[in-house]
């Protein structure tokens, strides 16, 4: 069965109230084609798990401006005034999560773990209401895995099995998000034949990737 589908068909699977893991860091390595199509399709009441809310006109910021996001787990909002306005107006629910913790909670979901123990946030508001656990003489916060429906990631190239390679710092959260989606859709700039990617270079094995879509500028 071919994993290659159109961006329209990919986005048609996403329904209101879906929980989305979206790759990228300040829009670098964000699946812009998929994001644009969600904006076009106006799929509402979405939950997103992202490192940052990007800019109003780049990355997941476009979903926020279109008011498609109902809630988010995110580590940084500083570049996007609109999401801060919506948060202050009570129109969007935000859980701020330290970036390293966010990544491990997503990774845990993809790896079949229930959560992680981290020292990050001890003695701050982040530990409020959470269970603290002593292990080897140190205190940790128990942080649960973050579950989700779709992982929307961006890679440089895919082969037709969905093996992914990334480019420079556009890798960022994408390999982590890719593991966590019940359905993972990878937007790529180039699709190559099976055998054309050096197995040593593959970062995300195709087992994690259900569908491949080609970026608008892709080949």
């Amino acid at each position, binding site marked *: 069965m071919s994993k290659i589908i159109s961006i329209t068909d990919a986005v048609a699977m996403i329904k209101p109230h879906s929980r989305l893991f979206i790759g990228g860091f300040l829009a670098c390595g964000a699946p812009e084609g998929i994001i644009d199509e969600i904006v076009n399709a106006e799929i509402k009441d979405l939950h997103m798990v992202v490192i940052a809310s990007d800019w109003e006109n780049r990355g997941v910021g476009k979903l926020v401006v279109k008011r498609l996001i109902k809630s988010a787990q995110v580590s940084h909002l500083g570049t996007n005034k609109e999401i801060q306005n919506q948060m202050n107006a009570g129109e969007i629910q935000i859980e701020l999560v330290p970036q390293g913790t966010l990544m491990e909670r997503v990774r845990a979901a993809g790896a079949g773990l229930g959560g992680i123990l981290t020292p990050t946030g001890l*003695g701050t508001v982040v530990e409020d209401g959470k269970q603290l656990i002593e292990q080897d003489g140190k205190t940790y916060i128990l942080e649960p895995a973050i579950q989700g429906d779709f992982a929307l990631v961006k890679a440089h190239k895919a082969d037709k099995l969905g093996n992914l390679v990334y480019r420079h710092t556009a890798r960022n*959260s994408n390999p982590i998000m890719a593991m966590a989606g019940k359905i993972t859709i990878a937007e790529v700039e180039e699709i190559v034949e099976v055998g054309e990617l050096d197995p040593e270079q593959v970062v995300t094995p195709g087992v994690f990737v259900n569908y491949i879509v080609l970026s608008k500028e892709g080949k």
Partner: protein
Amino acid sequence: MALDKRALIGRRIALELKDGDYVNLGIGLPTEVANHIPEGIHVLFQSENGMLGVGPAPMAGEEDKDLINAGGGYVTALQGASYFDSATSFAVIRGGHLDITVLGALQVDQEGNLANWMIPGKLVPGMGGAMDLVTGAKKVIVAMEHCDKSGNSKILKKCTLPLTAKGRVSLIVTDMAVLEKSDAGLILKEIASGLSIEDVVKATEADLIIPDKVGSF
């Protein structure tokens, strides 16, 4: 902030770097440190979006959309650089593999607490990677102006803003002083040239331990 203040702080912090250190510089003032690395010292800069060996900004026209730092600015990769995913990046940070992190601050206190990620009701940009950096780096250096825009001390007995991490700051470098956190409290190690110890004490809300010898920078 005046350019000379930035340079003063950046140059002083750069003296803390040892050859071979792995270093993360926060956005803004901390990036000034990179301009003052002493001769013969080679360090690798880490960027939390997933890179070690961050180089300077590219020449105009040579920007690569896939190569940025944690502030979103275009960078280059030095020889020996590596790219990795965000979980690996925070394994470097939280796992104690990073020698030094340099961050800005809204407030620091004499117990080594740091507040730099939100002002309730005013500004909530989120903590990004700051909590992990301050929790995990071997040495946490704060780079900031000694006082805020209204002239109030940013070095307090106790932080009033939400903390980034508890008791993790080891060194504070401002435009007025270098302060070291010890179990006994904040030690005034050095004062900026042209200032007196009195000047620093007056501009500081926190209690300072003043040794017999205070250097200058």
